[in-house]
């Protein structure tokens, strides 16, 4: 059985929004965005948001949730994603490697069908929304392997339908230009500027403990069940080699040095990682305020 992490990265966009409002920030850049639901929240509240990530599926979802102002999936379009379409040839064995390990034969077939169907949608925005909806169905399956008796058996197409249809509600314009970028932290920061830089830097070598629901979905998107997150990250997660403690500190310092034009830097961390990150931030910025609503959710707000 696959291990699902009990600890999940928690970014509270409503709290982040309160902090950004306090500092009168109207645009924010997040180069480690992950699943950009928090950027969607900030966008809904009128902030121009720019995100970046190395995992492509996060960026694709960002196309649907962040960049997208008005496109959604109609019922017939959702139907064309969740079921096998007559006349189309599918690579049904694409995810056979996962069969019996994580998923049933039927689920693996559906993963292959969905993989092909989402690539045939009319726009990047629709693709992004579909990827998000399908990911939630995928997470449901993984969860069900852990709690088989407590979760309902839902036909795959029905589950996927429900989740994809739901994505429509998060599509909204904010009359600002919002972007997402497939690239490392320095590439994102070089391409965009804003009032605030939001950093939730991953821990050193964090890819080794990355949640299966994250890297397996990248594998699904890539169509390669043998894909591991190390392929995506290598040494480039922080824009420079960061495998050991000194080089990790240097990489973070380099990011902060690149961020010198941002009026505000908000770094989210945990109590455990504070001793590592706080000195680096204080070295880069004279004023650092600590907002610590929870040991697992600490904001270091640095101003000039």
């Amino acid at each position: 059985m696959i291990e699902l992490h009990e600890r999940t990265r928690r970014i509270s966009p409503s709290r982040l929004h309160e902090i950004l409002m306090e500092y009168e920030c109207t645009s924010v850049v997040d180069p480690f965005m992950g699943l950009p639901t928090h950027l969607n929240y900030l966008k809904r509240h009128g902030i121009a948001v720019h995100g970046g990530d190395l995992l492509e599926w996060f960026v694709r979802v960002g196309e649907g949730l962040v960049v997208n102002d008005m496109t959604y999936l109609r019922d017939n379009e959702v139907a064309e994603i969740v079921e096998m379409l007559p006349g189309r040839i599918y690579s049904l064995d694409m995810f056979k490697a996962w069969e019996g390990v994580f998923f049933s034969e039927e689920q693996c077939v559906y993963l292959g069908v969905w993989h092909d169907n989402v690539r045939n949608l009319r726009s990047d925005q629709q693709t992004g929304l579909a990827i998000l909806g399908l990911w939630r169905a995928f997470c449901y399956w993984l969860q069900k392997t852990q709690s088989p008796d407590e979760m309902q058996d839902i036909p795959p197409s029905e589950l996927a339908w429900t989740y994809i249809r739901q994505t429509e509600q998060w599509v909204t314009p904010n009359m600002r230009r919002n972007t997402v970028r497939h690239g490392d932290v320095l590439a994102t920061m070089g391409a965009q500027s804003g009032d605030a830089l939001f950093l939730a830097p991953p821990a050193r070598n964090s890819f080794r403990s990355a949640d299966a629901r994250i890297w397996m979905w990248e594998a699904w998107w890539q169509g390669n069940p043998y894909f591991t997150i190390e392929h995506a990250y290598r040494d480039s997660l922080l824009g420079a080699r960061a495998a050991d403690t000194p080089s990790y500190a240097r990489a973070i310092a380099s990011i902060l040095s690149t961020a010198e034009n941002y009026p505000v830097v908000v770094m989210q961390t945990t109590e455990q990682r504070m001793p590592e990150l706080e000195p680096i931030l204080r070295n880069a910025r004279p004023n650092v305020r600590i907002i610590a609503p929870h040991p697992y959710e600490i904001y270091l707000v640095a101003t000039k």
Partner: protein
Amino acid sequence: MTLFQDTGGDPRAARARLADVLSWYGAVSDAAMGNQPGTAVRKASLAVALAEVAQVAQNERTALYFAGFLHATGAIGSAAYRKGEPLTDRNARMAVWDVPARGARFCASVTSLPVETIDFVRWQSECWDGTGFPDQLRWYGIPQSAQLLALADFFVRADDPEEALNAIGLQSGRAFGPDHARTFTIWFHHNAGEVTEVAMPLEALADTTPPHALLDAMADAIDHHNGVNGRWRRIAAIADGAARALELDDESRAQLALACRLFGAGEIGKDIGEDEQFDPLARLGIDVRAANAAAAAEFAQPHATLASAAPIVAMRSEWFDGTGKPKGLRGKAILPAASILAATIAYARLDRGERLEDAAGTQFDPKVVRAVMETAKAHA
């Protein structure tokens, strides 16, 4: 003038007073959201019972009670519920998503509450699968107690307990974590789905929030919700001047001051404010004013700290000539403070204050009208 009598340094009395003010606001916010009366108490009690089953730490259980009690406070002033231009369905839904975060901000402003209350209120509508609001947290990123609060909310809103149990089972892994849904099932079978009301854990309240300041802030929020910003403050200033002119004793003035802060709650669940519906001197508006007065008095009555103002609030729709409602009281049978409150509310709404004199002898006591007019002129 002090709004509340001195507690003589008794911390229990001070906490009970603060609890009364919070309870009142919890009930008012339930009405703002359109919930059944008593929803907050039932939700808080059930959440605590679930927390006992889940063996949640005692400090979290305490915070959970307050979070349940104040779960709807974000609805007061929210664009989704407040009076004003109606929103499109889509915008209304998005405004509803912001209600928990608004509630969390309110809880953060009440420093007497256990600090965990803030996050439990903020994340009470999050779903296990990440489709909830406001933050779309997922899995174990949602605090266990926030999930228990969500379960309690789902159950207390349901019409039929058995159906709710089934629905929660179906939502396992989606709205609720499987472990949390299991906790609910255990509680349900041990208690046959009966929620036993739990008393507010007063000892957990710190004495850092002055109840009068809190009540002022709440009255401001209610006025904002009703689309009449600053109304109670204008009314309170004139009413107190009139009360002085009429030589009301200190206790009556304190009750009147309290009533000025409480009467707006009666309009909270209504689509249109009474100011918008009828001229304050029109007989046509009697029923609406009486209904609002009764609703505001009902909110205040159960709370010892506020109950003394309830009769004043309830009588503000009586007419001096006995043709008012609800009881048709006449002349001196109407409390002087209630007469002052009624006349001041009307005065504050009138474009031309002199019109109040037209209602002297019929709607209002002439002496009260004179006192209100003179005070208002002095203020101007």
